[in-house]
């Protein structure tokens, strides 16, 4: 389990070195979600709201069992329901706990232009630092999972912290603690991945789910929240989980390479003008 400190690994829009980088090695943490044993009780939703001291609010009924259509700035954890009809005509109730995936390569952090508004700890947790957030919402368009949510009155963006405050003290996240079925587990990435693989194998071999598998998308470097799905070939049916989540090239190639090169080229105009003056001199009114 992680130690009592949270050492930062990556800082958004930070131009200098990262303080204390590499002085200690920490285990990557991971949240394990087995959607096949989730009963949709929403205890995790309540635990999240309680621990993070957010107000209970009226639910939005839209003919599903979902609390509301999507996560909100003050509602970070939402069970998504989907009535899924299988090929043989039988019904399946798919329930997926939707929250921040804590990507190893976070699109939000890449997109963020504010120094220190988003940090990634060495244990893999991606955390928003609202005091540094400028409310530009680039993270919203940088996230392939539609997780960061903007609060228009505070002009800040919020999302699941993976209970970094609890994890930093050696506790598991609130949602994990509340889960009554054991479909949520928390530990190191290696352990959780092994557990997920074993469970997926069990589903394939003993429960008739030939396509069962683990959702840990490599396109974002893997995630620190992983799912065991009955059908890993069709993640979209679990409340719109993207099969191939990608960070928009706007925040990768463009931001990393084109922008600094473009700026340097544009600023070249200044020395060019200066040396024009030195070499050609001013054009005086004649005579």
């Amino acid at each position, binding site marked *: 389990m992680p130690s009592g400190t949270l050492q930062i690994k990556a800082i958004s829009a930070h131009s200098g070195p990262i303080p204390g980088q590499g002085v200690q090695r920490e285990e990557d943490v991971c949240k394990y979600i087995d959607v096949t044993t989730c009963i949709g009780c929403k205890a995790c939703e309540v635990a999240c709201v309680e621990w993070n001291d957010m107000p209970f609010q009226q639910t939005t009924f839209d003919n599903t069992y979902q609390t509301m259509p999507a996560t909100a700035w003050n509602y970070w954890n939402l069970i998504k329901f989907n009535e899924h009809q299988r090929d043989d005509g039988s019904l399946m109730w798919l329930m997926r706990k939707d929250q921040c995936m804590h990507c190893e390569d976070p699109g939000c952090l890449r997109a963020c232009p504010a*120094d220190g508004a988003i940090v990634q700890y060495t244990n893999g947790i991606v955390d928003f630092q609202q005091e540094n957030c400028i409310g530009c919402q680039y993270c919203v368009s940088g996230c392939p999972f539609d997780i960061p949510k903007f609060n228009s009155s505070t002009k800040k963006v919020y999302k699941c912290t993976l209970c970094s405050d609890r994890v930093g003290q050696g506790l598991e996240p609130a949602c994990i603690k509340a889960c009554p079925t054991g479909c949520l587990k928390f530990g190191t990435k290696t352990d959780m991945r092994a557990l997920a693989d074993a469970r997926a194998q069990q589903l394939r071999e003993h429960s008739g789910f030939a396509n069962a598998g683990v959702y840990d998308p490599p396109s974002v470097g893997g995630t620190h929240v992983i799912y065991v799905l009955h059908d890993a070939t069709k993640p979209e049916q679990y409340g719109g989980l993207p099969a191939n989540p990608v960070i928009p090239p706007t925040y990768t190639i463009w931001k990393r390479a084109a922008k600094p090169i473009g700026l340097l080229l*544009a600023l070249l105009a200044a020395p060019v003008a200066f040396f024009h003056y030195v070499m*050609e001199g001013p*054009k005086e009114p004649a005579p």
Partner: protein
Amino acid sequence: MNGAIERFDDRARRRVGAYGRTMVRENELVRHPVYTRVLHWSVAIFFILALLSGFAIYSPWLYRALTPLFGGGPTTRLLHPWFSLGFVIFFAFQILNWLEPMTWTSDDRRWMKQVKSYVTNKEPVEPEYVDFFNGGQKLYFWAIVASAVVFLLSGFPMWFPKTFGRITVDIGYVLHDIAALVMLVGFIVHLYEGTGAQPGTFQAMTRGTVERRWAWTHHPAWYRRATGRDPRTDYEQARQRSSRPPDPTARTDLK
């Protein structure tokens, strides 16, 4: 052009013009009336504010240096679209004001073909056909117009991302950057041309006047229209009167 816009524009010109005046000294011509000057500097102030607040967010290397100018990151982000809106509104008036002298003509194509001689100060005076604005000035103007349109179209999705959606914001982000870089290059060249590169130019935008010899040097066709005199003849006469070396067209390069 739309009659209603023209009238509105004209009223603004009359109103602003009524408050100021342009002192014309001996051997000077009025280059930019009060209205044009007020617009230019209003555009300039908002442009620089938008530029600094925009580049603060543009790059992590500039973030720490530029955001304190506006009271920190959040206020920089908050103010930037309003600065930009100020720029766009005043610049819209300037576009209406300058639509006619900024119209691209075949003379500007000719000017562009000899731009090398302009840059290297080959000739003491500009070609006879150069009117109120030369091809380079028009190119800068229309580049700013184009960038301003791109800014406006890409800026609103970035301002209200929820209304426009992810993809629009992503594309807008890239277009906004390109427009910013085009403007930055143009702005640097504009600063240089308006100050160090051509002595006597800056006062055209402050006091509003230029010397007659400045006019026949840089804008001979305009000189002809404004004074009814031949720029080349006046230049030759002034050259004979002056105590400078007999032939200033011959550059004394001591390389």
